Each structure stands twice: as C-alpha cells, then as structure tokens.
C-alpha cells in the first residue's frame, strides 16, 4: 500500500483554501451563537430558583424526548442549564456542517471529474479522502477550541475552563463522527445527492434513537446515538470524559472502514448501485400543478412535521406555565397581558388568564414560523423562473396564469394545513400532559385559523411582488420581517398605533381571550384576493425574466 497517501498535505491546503469562506462562516456563526447565549441565558434566569423552576417544567417526557435529560437539578447552575439545553442543537448543526463539508470534497469532486484530474497527478489513491478527513479534523478542532475558550471567557455561572473545553470538544467530536459517517456514505452512494441524503438520514436516525432512549429513560439506547452519548458526559455537572473518548474512537473506526472501502472501489462507483429512477412520469406529474406539487411536497411535509412537534413541545409545558410566569411582571408583559388585566387578576382566575394569553402568544409566534414555508411555496414560481425552468413549461400549451396558479394555490392550501398541524400538535400534547385540558380542539383550531386571512394577505403581497418586481422578490422577506417585528415586540416597544395597524397580524382577534370577530377577517381575505389577482395581472403582462 505504499504511496496511498502521497501528497495528502498539498490536498489539505487545497481543501482549506476552498473552505476559507464556507467553513469560516460556519465556525463564526456557531461560535458566536454559542458564546453569546451563555451570558444571555444567565441574565434571563439569574437566580437558581427560577432555573430550577424552568427545569421542573421541562422535565416531562415530551420535552426530555425532544431535548434529552436534565442533569444537576440539585445545584442547577446556568452552566448545567446551558449544557442540558444547548449541546444537542449545536451538535446537530455541527453534524450538518460536516455532512456538507466532507461530501463537498469527496463525492461532489468525484462527480464533477475533479478527482480524476487530481488522481492523474502523482497523488496517492487515498489522498483525497485523507485530505478531506484531516481538514474536517482541523476545522472541528478549531471550532471546538473557539467554543470552549469562548464559553470559559464569558465567566458565566458554573462554566469553568475545563468544563467549557469539554463542551467544545464534545461538539467537535460529534462533528467528527458525522464527518466519518459521511465519508462512509460517500463510498456507499455513487452520487453526492445520495451521499448527503444518506448521511442526513443517519443524523435523523441518531436523533430518533436518542429521543426513544431518553423517553424510556434508557441510557443504553440513548448511547447508541452520538447525540445521546455526548449528553451522557453531563457537561457542566459531572464532566465525564468517557463519552468524549468513545465518540473519538467511533469516528476513527468509521473513518477506517470508509478508507478501506475507498481503497478497493473504482473511481466514480459506489458500493450501493445507484437505484435507477422512474423511466417515465406517473399520472400525477403530467400537469403544471402536478409538477408544482412534486417540487414542493417534500419541503412542506417536513415543515408540517416540524410544526406538529413544535406545537407539541409548547403543549407539553403550557399547563405548568402559570406557575412559572405568574410572579414575574416581565414575563406577563412578554406574553402580552396588559397591565390593567394583571392588576385585576385574582388568584382564582390567574392561571386561566395566563394560559389563555400564553396560548394567544404562541399562536402568533407559530403563525410567524408557519409563514416561512407558505411564502416559500408562493415564491417558488419566481425561483423556477430565475433558474430558467419556467421557460420549458410556458413554451408549451400552458398559460402564465395557470402556471403561477399552481404554486399560489399550494401556498394557500399549505397555510391551512400547517396551521391545522400546529394546532393539532399543541392540543394533543396539552391533552397528554395536563390533568384538565384548558383548550378545546375546536377552540384551538379556530384560534390558529383566525390568522389565515393575515397569512393570505402576505401571500397576496408575495404574488404582487412576483408580478410587479421580479428582480426584487427578496422584498417579501422585508415585509415579513416588519410583520414579525411588530407582532413580536410592537406592544412592548410602544410603537405608534398606525405602525402596528399596517401589519395584518394586528387585526386578528386574539383567541381565546377575545371573541371571534369576523369583519376584519373578511376584509383581509378580500384584500388578500385583490392583491393576488393584481399579482396575476402584472405577471401575465410582464416579460419572463430569467436571472
């Protein structure tokens, strides 16, 4: 096997040079996010009583399944809270970073024929994969070190240097495990898309295994997953080292298998034969609408599931929320209870009022999140145009109007389905966790559906922008930002009424505290339809504008 690794170091420099932007952004964003959140968390929950209270609320099967177990309750420092709440999410993000990083420099290069060029030079057979793995090691190492040092430097309660370095190392080690898994998937699949899909699948599976293990309180099952393993380190509480060592060993073993497979396969081949796709289109794909459904379905289904889960996570804590926020005027203000209501609240109706306002508050928040995929669905018609793919459809027997109608119809339908999914998640989890469900299913669904006309107004704005300003479709996100901003903190900032008035969300009756009021909803629906219709008129009249 002499010479298998020749010139690896030069290739490492090539990888790092090509990564100077991409990986730097990942490292900077992840480090800043991690470091800024630590003192932020401490400021928000500065005394141990509050933190323990929060932990108690979160210590229910649904939240443990989502986030992992809570450790160190007897001395719940901010560090312990941070370690329990943050490690999983940052580790997932770093896993995703590594999946893209390793695929980019192995399978993608191979697919594009770049490795062929490199291989024709005096470069070892395993030098490419070796260079990708060494680069991953360096990048994850830098990230681990920066996060560890950064967290220690904040001097946050309970976050010493040793523990913080362990926290960073755990993040980096999970990253390396996924770098190795991706390297393996790149040997199995013969396309970069397939390799990314497979690695993401493993990441999803790792999350599910951990969730299943944690939900049953089984450390053994949870430790089958790199995420569960990392959490067993109980960083900032007990700082066990063995999970870190197991993770690193795991990465080495998987990487070794990947190297072995790489050395015995032909360039361009994968061990799993590429599954041939369909030779022809099914009946569903044979129309412009069918194409739009096909292009958007995957993204929308993922969002429906995510929103169902997000709804469920709020549902699992909502019954206890009164006990937590009840004594804090700031929290009462955040969830939007007016001062006069707070002043007249009696102990008897206090918890119901808080639950109602909290429900109304998360309805607004969730609606804002739901708007993202809905607007994306509508904007897809423009990105298709920009990518030069609308031309194929519009040069055939399809009118501009019916072409765009497919995407817009999907956006409208998706708005209804995703609001329903969120309400369902919220209701079902509340029902499972609370002794007496404070909501009725119908009541929750109507609270979420009351926001539909407001969502439709934004769809209308999106369609109008596509019709009128195809070069500036990013403007829809500025509009969205304004709506989100005013809904979020408009009340707290005491913005002038007319500013809030501009946002469609402002006119929605806030169920369940307020009565359902139909006139504003009808007016907004009409406005939405008029904006949509205008968008269609302008779209029909304008040139197709690629780029």
């Amino acid at each position, binding site marked *: 096997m002499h010479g298998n690794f020749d010139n690896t170091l030069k290739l490492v420099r090539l990888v790092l040079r090509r990564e100077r932007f991409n990986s730097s952004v990942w490292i900077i964003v992840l480090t800043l996010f991690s470091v800024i959140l630590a003192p932020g968390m401490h400021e928000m929950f500065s005394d141990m009583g509050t933190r323990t209270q929060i932990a108690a609320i979160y210590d229910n099967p649904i939240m443990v399944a989502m986030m992992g177990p809570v450790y160190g309750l007897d001395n719940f420092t901010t560090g312990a809270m941070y370690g329990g709440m943050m490690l999983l999410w940052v580790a997932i993000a770093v896993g995703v970073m590594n999946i893209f990083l390793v695929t980019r420099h192995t399978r993608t290069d191979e697919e594009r024929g770049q490795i062929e060029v490199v291989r024709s030079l005096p470069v070892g057979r395993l030098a490419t994969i070796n260079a990708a793995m060494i680069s991953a090691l360096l990048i994850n190492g830098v990230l681990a070190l920066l996060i560890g040092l950064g967290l220690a430097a904040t001097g946050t309660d309970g976050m010493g240097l040793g523990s913080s370095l362990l926290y960073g190392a755990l993040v980096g080690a999970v990253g390396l495990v996924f770098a190795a898994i991706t390297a393996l998937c790149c040997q199995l699949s013969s396309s970069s898309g397939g390799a990314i899909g497979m690695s993401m699948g493993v990441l999803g599976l790792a999350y599910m295994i951990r969730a299943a293990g944690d939900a049953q309180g089984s450390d053994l099952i949870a430790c089958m997953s790199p995420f569960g393993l990392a959490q067993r380190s109980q960083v900032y509480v007990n700082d066990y080292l063995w999970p870190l060592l197991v993770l690193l060993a795991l990465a080495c073993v998987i990487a070794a298998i990947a190297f072995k497979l790489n050395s015995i396969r032909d360039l361009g081949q994968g061990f799993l034969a590429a599954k041939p796709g369909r030779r022809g289109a*099914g009946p569903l794909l044979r129309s412009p609408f069918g194409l739009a459904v096909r292009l958007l379905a995957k993204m929308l289904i993922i969002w429906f599931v995510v929103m169902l889960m997000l709804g469920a996570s709020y549902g699992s804590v909502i019954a206890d929320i009164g006990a937590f926020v009840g004594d804090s005027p700031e929290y009462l203000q955040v969830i939007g209870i007016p001062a006069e209501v707070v002043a007249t609240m009696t102990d008897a109706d206090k918890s119901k009022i808080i639950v109602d306002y909290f429900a109304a508050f998360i309805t607004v928040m969730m609606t804002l999140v739901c708007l993202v995929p809905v607007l994306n669905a509508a904007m897809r018609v423009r990105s298709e145009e920009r990518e030069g793919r609308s031309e194929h459809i519009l*040069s055939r027997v399809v009118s501009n109007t019916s072409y765009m109608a497919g995407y817009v119809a999907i956006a409208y339908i998706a708005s209804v389905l995703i609001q329903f999914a969120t309400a369902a998640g919220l209701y079902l989890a509340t029902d499972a966790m609370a002794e007496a469900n404070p909501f009725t299913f119908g009541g929750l669904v109507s609270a979420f559906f009351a926001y539909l006309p407001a969502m439709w107004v934004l769809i209308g704005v999106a369609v109008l922008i596509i019709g009128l300003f195809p070069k500036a479709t990013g403007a829809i996100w500025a509009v969205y930002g304004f709506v989100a901003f005013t809904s979020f903190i408009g009340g707290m900032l005491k913005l002038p009424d007319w500013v809030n008035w501009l946002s469609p969300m402002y006119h929605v009756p806030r169920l369940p505290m307020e009565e359902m009021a139909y006139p504003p909803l009808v007016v907004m629906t009409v406005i939405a339809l008029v904006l949509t219709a205008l968008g269609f008129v302008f779209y029909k009249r304008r040139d197709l504008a690629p780029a």
Partner: protein
Amino acid sequence: MSELSLETVDLTKRFGKFTALDSVNLKVNEGEVFGYIGPNGAGKTTTIRVLLGILQASEGSAKVFGMDAWKDAVEIHKRIAYVPGDVNLWPNLTGGEVIDLFVSLCGKHDKSRREGLLEDFDLDPSKKCRTYSKGNRQKVALVAALASDADLYILDEPTSGLDPLMEQVFQERVLGLKKQGKGIFLSSHIMSEVEKLCDRIAIIKEGAIVESGTLDEMRHLTRMSMTIKTEAPVEGLDQVKGVHEITDGQGGLTFQVDSDTVGDVVSFIGKFGVTKLESTPPTLEDLFMRHYNTAGGA
C-alpha cells in the same frame, strides 16, 4: 409555400436602454427549414423568446401562424415544439419524468416516438437530471420536442452540447421532419449544420439582420475564390474588373472574383493557357466571417 409560418415586422426589443433587437424582419414559409445564425449575444435567443410569447415586443410585430406571438401564445404553442439553448432541468426528477411531463403539456404528441428517440439519442431516462451532462440535458429537451407532433419546431442551438455522432442523429431527424413538411426554425452557430439543413438563412448581428436569403442568393452577392496555374505568366489581372486579393503562391495564383464577373475573368485568363483551375464558392462561414470581421476591424 404561400403560407407564412412565422413573420416579424420591424420587431424591436429593448431591455431598459439596451436594444437587443432592432427592427428585425423575418419571414419563414411553411414547411421550410430556416437557419438563424449569429454569435452569442447577437439576439438569437431574444428573437425566439419573443416568438414564444415569453418576452413582449417593444415595437413591431411578431406573428406565428398568423397569430400574435404575445396575445395568442397558448394557442400558438399547441402547434410548436421548442428546445431552449441552455437546458436547465429539475435536479431531482429523472430524464424520463421530465420528457413525459413536457410531452403531456404539448398540444399533440405521439407516444410511440419516445422510445425510438431515447434509443437513437442513447439517453438513459431513469437517471436524475442532476447527474446529466450538458449534452444529456439537451437530449432530454430534444427528445421531448421531437416526440411532440408540431407544425413548427423552434430549436435554439440544439446541438451545442452534442457529440458528432448525436449531431448526425439530430440532422437525420430534422431532415425526416422536413420531408413530412414540418417547418423548422434553427438557431445555430455551427455553419456546416446550417449549410446542410437549411433552405433559407438569416444572419443577425448586434440585434439587426444583416443578410438573409437562400445560400445561393447570398453567395451571389459575394466573391468566389479561384486558384489557377498557367503556361504563360498572367499579366494585367489586377486591371480586370471584379478581381481582388491576388496572391502568387506555390499552388498557383489565387484571387477572389465577384460573382457577376466570373465569365469575363475566365475568358481573360484563358489567353494565358490555363493548366489548372480550381474554384470554391464561399462557405457560409466565409459569408459570416465577412460580416463580423469588418465590424471588428480585423
């Protein structure tokens, strides 16, 4: 040949201040193969997009089958098939799915043609479009267009990514369509292809048509190249009307002759005892380069 399948009158298209098309006049007869040549950026694709009704003319008119290209786009599209120059496809659909989708969006199509075309063009329809090379993406668009039963085929540089073998398949297919009396509007910068396939040709330069007609007509307006060897040295050739660019080389005397003075020149050189005479008509490439070289100052 009386019906026009396609006609533009003073067609002008501006993008902001930039004039992409400047009073373009084109006439394509029914059942004719029309070659539209010009380099990248000359306005070929813009013309086609106007004809397809996905860009609106700033001035002038564009008609296909006598209908307005913008207003009656959908009606027109029932009778045409189109292959774009730059084929972008959906990375996660297979080639076969895309072909079926395209074909089912056409007015008329012939299902039986699909398999034959796939075989001729040697295209695997079960692969995802992301794995296709440029040539293969072009094949997807070609198979979809040729499988549909159109009266006019609009092809924008359809062979720019194809290998010579596939180019041959393409040319055979086009000649087959021509035999069936189908009209073809072929934009290209591959001169030999246009020379071989097209009845009439238009050359576009910076948004304006600089020459159009049959290849013969266009040649008529230009010079032919002659190489001769004679027993006696030729004298006074530079005095003869219509003779240009005389060079004396090893192969003999080479010069250019205006097409309408060929007879006079031949009788003049006859006096010197011609032992060898070669004449080559200008290729389309020569015609084309003539327009472009003068502009470039070369």
